[in-house]
């Protein structure tokens, strides 16, 4: 289902660019969001609207290759004029980086390679549509990025690893705590029939409510509120992913985990993941915890 939707995204016909300013941008007084979808649904949630604006200036692929990372850094704004298709090579570069890092870290993570279905999902999600336009050119770098509201979009490698660890099947019910940009939810939505996601920051929840359907992810239910209690009406879940900071694993979430299910939490600070916590519930209901260092690192020199 959603695979097709994702495919449709990349082949969407050219539409006029709409420049809109969201309320956050208004308070910062600086940035402008560019929405190439020209989708009327988008308009309602924004306070200011200036249709028309910049023409499509999508550069040829060669130019992108030429610019490289440094160019994208300096000319991030120029990148925002590109079409979805223009980003395909960058996305493939991101996938290569993920595959490469996964191989290197296999000894620590126990994951030799990311599940091909997860990689395919990452290839379908337009990551650049989930970051603020002024840093769109950096969207496929293998690094976390700021998305406003003091939040970040996770490093692609970490997204891939966490999604892999959840071992998803299409029929799995998935709960995400901390929608953020909606990118992780979109990746999940590419893999399963139904995703439930909870966000506690109102503007982020609003933004995801607008963004995810617009990008074709109609199978994501978004709720504004307290993720601590999970989503009892939709429980149990075969997979739960907690991307919000937590000092402990909320007991209601463990309770809502289906037998055989997995819960994953990236632990760390903004822009830096220290470890991944993987909680599994056995068929008998017994809970086991694994702490995974997402990097090939042995704290001791020699002797090991």
């Amino acid at each position, binding site marked *: 289902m959603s695979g097709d939707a994702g495919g449709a995204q990349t082949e969407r016909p050219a539409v006029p660019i709409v420049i809109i300013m969201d309320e956050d941008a208004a308070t910062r007084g600086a940035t402008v969001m560019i929405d190439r979808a020209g989708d009327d649904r988008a308009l309602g949630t924004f306070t200011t609207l200036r249709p028309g604006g910049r023409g499509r200036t999508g550069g040829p692929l060669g130019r992108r290759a030429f610019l490289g990372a440094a160019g994208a850094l300096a000319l991030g704004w120029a990148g925002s004029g590109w079409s979805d298709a223009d980003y395909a090579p960058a996305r493939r570069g991101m996938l290569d980086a993920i595959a490469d*890092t996964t191989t290197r870290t296999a000894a620590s993570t*126990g994951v030799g390679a990311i599940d091909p279905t997860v990689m395919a999902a990452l290839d379908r999600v337009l990551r650049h549509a989930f970051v603020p336009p002024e840093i769109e050119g950096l969207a496929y770098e293998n690094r976390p990025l700021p998305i406003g509201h003091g939040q970040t979009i996770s490093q692609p490698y970490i997204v891939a690893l966490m999604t892999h660890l959840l071992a998803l099947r299409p029929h799995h019910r998935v709960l995400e705590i901390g929608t953020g940009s909606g990118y992780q939810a979109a990746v999940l939505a590419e893999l399963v029939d139904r995703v439930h996601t909870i966000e506690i920051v109102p503007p982020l929840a609003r933004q995801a409510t607008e963004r995810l359907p617009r990008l074709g992810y109609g199978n994501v239910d978004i709720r504004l509120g307290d993720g601590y209690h999970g989503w009892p009406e939709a429980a149990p879940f075969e997979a739960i992913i907690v991307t919000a900071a937590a000092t402990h694993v909320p007991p209601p979430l463990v309770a809502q985990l289906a037998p055989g299910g997995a819960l994953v939490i990236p632990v760390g600070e*903004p822009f*830096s993941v*220290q470890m991944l916590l993987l*909680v599994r519930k056995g068929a008998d209901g017994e809970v086991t915890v694994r*702490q995974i260092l997402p*990097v090939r690192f042995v704290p001791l020199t020699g002797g090991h």
Partner: protein
Amino acid sequence: MNAAEQRAPGVLLLAAVALLSAAALGYEILLTRLLAIVQWHHFAFMVISIALLGFGASGAFLLVAGERIRLSVGPFVALAALAFGVAAPACFAIAQHVPFNVLELPWSLRPLGSLFLIELLLALPFFIAATAIGRALIVFGSSLSRVYAADLAGAGGGALAAVGLLHLLPPDRTLDGLGAMAAVAAGLAALRAAHIARWTLLANAAALIVVLAVDPGWGELRISPFKPLPQALRVTGAKPAESRSGPLGLVSAVENEKVPLRWAPGLSLLARAPVPEQVALFVDADGPTAIVRHRPGSPPPAYLGDLTSALPYHLLERPRVLVLGAGGGIAVLQALGGGARSVDAVELQPDLVAITRDRYSGFSGDVYGHPTVKLHVADPRAFVEAGRGEGFDLIAVDALGASPSGLHALEEERLLTVESMRAMLARLSPHGLLAVTGWAQLPPRGGPRGFATLVDALRTEGIEPAARHLAWIRSWNTSTLVASRSPLTEARTAAVRDFARARAFDLVHVPGIEAGESNRFNVLERPWFHEAAARLLGPERERFVRGYKFDIRPATDDRPYLWSFFRWAHAPEVLALSREGGSGLLAVGYLALPVTLVQAAVASAALILVPLLLVRRRGGRSGTARRPVTLGGFFCLGLAFLMMEIAFIGRFTVILSHPLHALVVVLAAFLVFAGVGSWLAGRRGTGDSGNSGSITLPVAGIVALAAAAIAALPHLTSWLLGSSPGTRIAAAIVLVAPLATLMGMPFPRALARLRRLDPALVPWAWGVNGCASVVGAVLATLIAVHQGQAFVIAAAALLYAAAAVACGRMGRESRNREGSSRG
């Protein structure tokens, strides 16, 4: 300038110089506070270090352009003070609008541009003040020592003024107060100007005071959106409830009925009891810590028994408990729930206590008003050291304050050093326990260092074998260390095992632990924690510590950087891995040091060399002073002064047991007495001959006193910590006075000599000294983190000796040259 002006600066102008100098130093201290609130401590360190290069830049400016300034000193200082009064609050306000995210630095160098801009902005007020003071120094060359003395004494007063402002005003208004101070300086200097200029300047000074008093709103704090306070406020339902500020920080309380905070680090996965509603407390927008809802009369919330920190309560019967760092009272509630007979709660931050006790008295079930709880607003370290009499059955330390990410790498932790842990062990009853709970970072860092520190403390107290006195458990994110004065009995060991098993916590160490017992619930790739504990207790401990990729040497009073784990030997590996999922390995806080040092070195080189080249191109004079030996001499003097000062501030932070008071008392004492020294240096004899007195003698004194300090400070620390705060402050001043007085002598004497040899280079030396001060401050911290503060003191003494040699050589060469030119 006229001849009369050259002869005598006059009291008014000296007062203006002192006041402007006070404002500049006050600016440095207030920026440290403000930047720590809006960003982080290490960011403040980085930015202010570089901004202080404004002093170096003033020297360069005066060297190149000084002769073209037509304005006489009085109006010049007045104008500069006015400019400072505007720039100090305005530059900070503008800098706050430069978008900058320090957390992104491991991923991208993009923020460095913004960083540079911020540093440049904040350097401007320092540049303005230093240019005015520098010009006064140059113009009143024959009274150089008096001007320098006014500069130093004023700076000392500025340190005190900054604390006064922090007491009196909310943080966002403090810079306005400083601006007003500069306006007064402008008024004093203006009195030396001719009629019209005088009244114009006075009117402007008055106008500036009025504007600042009305509150231009420049100071509004724009806190990084990635800090915990703004994060909490963004959550739906969040209500900022109260905020209080003082020299120790800005405390903010946030309520949220819709999505309440649930702060429970290390809560067992098997915990069934709910986490009750909490009010979040933030210090300098960092944290949080919490106040838990509790109904008086009912038992404390049961979840508190399912944290790793609850372990000691399962080993003790009705203990007398000392809670160090009580904050919002969670640990006190935990103690009450754990059956404590009495609880002594110690907290340094008065506003945390006040908010808990006053506003949330009902909410918290009046935790501090409980009949068996006794609250002490005091420094925990001093409380432990000062105590006499009956021992405690449990001393509980919460080290969860600092985030585990390495953002606090440059902050000193005085409570968890070997010396401090010894003092705590000494205050325990015969079967008493010391329990320390902290984050269990991965790969293990803080845990092994805490354990190593505790092992050292036990051994030096003669409590051996340490392995039989220690227990260590961990959850996936916290670890609790327990040390017992008496060997852990089998019953107690069994209780540790039961406690851990029932809550799915992992055993790291208990007496007689078997390898298979650890790493069972929160499974790591290898049992890193257990292996570390076993090695740290074993014969190959030194080898293990040396071979570990993080610095886990025990923290000491001399090297109290508990959170700094960076080792240069493994920097290439960590840096290479930082993008491959290893971002958590990088300590951003530590990296501020080398980044700042490189910036400081590059900028200093430019500020020292470029003006020289310019002057030479203009056909500068020949002279001894160009020789590298002169540069070396002045650079050594600048380095040495700051290194000595920083090391002493570090040591006295432990003794004075209050970070800001230590900074201010020691800094003020150093500056004021250096001012006295400078004045004395000028008085010995008259005129140039007196000023050019040798610096060998004061340097010999400095070296001797530094050696004495290194030998005596460890003993003094413990002895003084037991005395009253007043005694400690007096002792600090008495101890600093002789050293600082001597340290005030070499610079003016060397400068006076240079003035005789090559007056054109005096401003350049002022600039060299300014640059060296900046490099010295950064270098001092870098060395202290790795080698300790005693090492820094020794290095500073050596640099003074080197400066004396350089100064002597400069003199001889010049005499020869003068002789030959005469002949």
